[in-house]
């Protein structure tokens, strides 16, 4: 399945911070076919560093999508049955307007003059995309991590536009620990002299800072057990310690490699803005309780967490599930067993597939 990223421009988008972005481009991909009743559309929402290329093989670079194991013919999000959409988030750097985009008023990249955005803003832009595609009501929205936050935002604030929501490995609000890890990433970027207050687009980007941010991120996405299995204390291309600060351990090599690769595909300012949006997200904000955050006509929910995910521990999603139950909403919850930590929703997909496939088929059959 060769896919091409498409793009659509909207005149403007009002933001939670009070500012208005104009114009706004959205990069998106679609897989499968929209049925004549327009009732089989599923919107997939990506995590912090994801993009619109969720499935299939990219026409541009031949790479598979970030959730290619979940989206496709016969897969959990079965493109033989459903019309699947994925777009790059607002503030991103993969085709949707973000800090690296050119500000039409100045002719220069926004950099740090880009307004601070929220998960709510990201979803508001996705609603515009769905309008543009002529879809009145989505069959489902789903995503893991930050994609799960957007999923919950859809469920709480756009209930008339979506029938089912599948939040995975996520939370209704970041804990101090989650904010802390994001802040380390941001500080690593801002401490890099090449960051230059965000004005690096004409020179070299803060590659070292961004790489460190990515390294920290990767540690939080894995589990103690998966790191032990993958690396242990194995040495990299040597029999003995080097007694210097070159690479000794396999895990060091892996993190450095991942860090350096990341710099090639991700904008440091986008990292700042998007992590900030995650930290600001609080679904209960403005409501008396998390239960009150969901309207009466909230979509049915399937919530999935993973046993070894210590970055988004199960209790956070259970809180959401409890809130839904306290209002008698239709909610299913399962904690899947996995050793892969937070990465499980991307890599350990056997049981996740079975659960989502059945839930979607049942939801679709009730239409």
């Amino acid at each position, binding site marked *: 399945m060769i896919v091409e990223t498409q793009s659509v421009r909207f005149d403007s988008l009002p933001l939670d911070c009070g500012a208005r972005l104009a114009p706004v481009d959205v990069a998106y991909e679609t897989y499968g076919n929209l049925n004549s009743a327009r009732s089989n559309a599923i919107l997939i929402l990506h995590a912090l560093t994801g993009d619109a290329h969720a499935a299939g093989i990219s026409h541009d670079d031949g790479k598979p999508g970030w959730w290619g194991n979940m989206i496709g013919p016969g897969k959990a999000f079965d493109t033989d049955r459903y019309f699947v959409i994925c777009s790059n988030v607002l503030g991103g750097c993969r085709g949707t307007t973000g800090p690296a985009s050119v500000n039409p008023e100045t002719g220069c990249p926004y950099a740090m003059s880009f307004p601070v955005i929220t998960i709510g803003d990201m979803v508001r832009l996705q609603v515009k995309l769905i309008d543009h595609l002529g879809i009145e009501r989505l069959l489902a929205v789903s995503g893991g991590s930050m994609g799960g936050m957007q999923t919950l935002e859809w469920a709480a604030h756009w209930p008339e536009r979506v029938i089912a929501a599948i939040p995975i490995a996520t939370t209704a609000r970041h804990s101090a620990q989650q904010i802390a890890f994001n802040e380390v990433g941001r500080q690593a970027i801002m401490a890099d002299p090449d960051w230059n207050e965000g004005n690096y687009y004409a020179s070299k980007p803060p590659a070292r800072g961004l790489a460190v941010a990515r390294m920290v991120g990767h540690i939080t996405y894995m589990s103690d057990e998966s790191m032990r299995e993958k690396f242990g204390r194995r040495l990299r291309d040597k029999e003995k310690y080097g007694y210097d600060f070159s690479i000794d351990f396999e895990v060091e090599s892996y993190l450095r490699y991942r860090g350096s690769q990341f710099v090639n595909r991700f904008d440091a300012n986008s990292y700042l803005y998007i992590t900030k949006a995650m930290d600001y997200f609080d679904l209960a904000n403005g409501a008396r309780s998390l239960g009150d955050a969901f309207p009466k006509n909230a979509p*049915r929910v399937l919530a999935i967490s993973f046993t070894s995910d210590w970055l988004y521990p199960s209790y956070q999603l259970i809180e959401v599930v409890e809130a839904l139950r*306290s209002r008698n909403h239709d909610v*299913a919850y*399962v904690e899947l*067993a996995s050793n892969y930590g937070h990465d499980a929703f991307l890599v350990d997909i056997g049981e996740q597939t079975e659960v989502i496939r*059945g*839930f979607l*088929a049942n939801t679709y059959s009730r239409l």
Partner: protein
Amino acid sequence: MTTTAGAARHFVRELLGRSDYAIISDLVEPDSRVLDLGCGEGELLEWLAANRSVEGRGIEIDGRKVQRAIARGISVYQGDIDQGLSGYPDDSFDYVILSQTLQETRRPLEVLREMLRVGRRAIVAFPNYGHWAMRVSALFTGRAPRSKCFPYEWYESPNIHFLTVKDFEVLADNQGWTVERKIFLSGHNAVRALANLRAEVAVYLVRR
């Protein structure tokens, strides 16, 4: 589908391989809201949804079973019955079902009270510890009694609170619950007299 048997018939049909399911399915009014505690893979809820237009929810502790239940389209919450009901508001359901699990709960009275808080009615099916085979087993072997309904060695039994038909009646009376229906089973036979001695399984429909 077999016709509705009714409790008065001598032979009780099976549903999904279980006679208690057959009785429960007769007790549940169509188009009602049902919560099944310890719902396993959601077989009963699926049947009730398809045949009684019931809106069903389940609670199950075993993750593998929860996965299979969700995969068949049942909204199941992975959690513990002993704590799992507190999240629901009062009168959320028309029926709360507890089938063959009461004797496995840590605080059975709390569970029953919670069932009658979140549900207007409770359907409780349990194996009768007072069955003659248990009494005979205890009397003649001098060991922890075992029977068809209580097949486990004492050290591997999931059952931690044993009750008889009489025990349940006394409790319902103490608590002021109204027993609307009671059905007693021995294999596939309905038991109509000497239930505490002859019933292997008892099914009660109770309301506050």
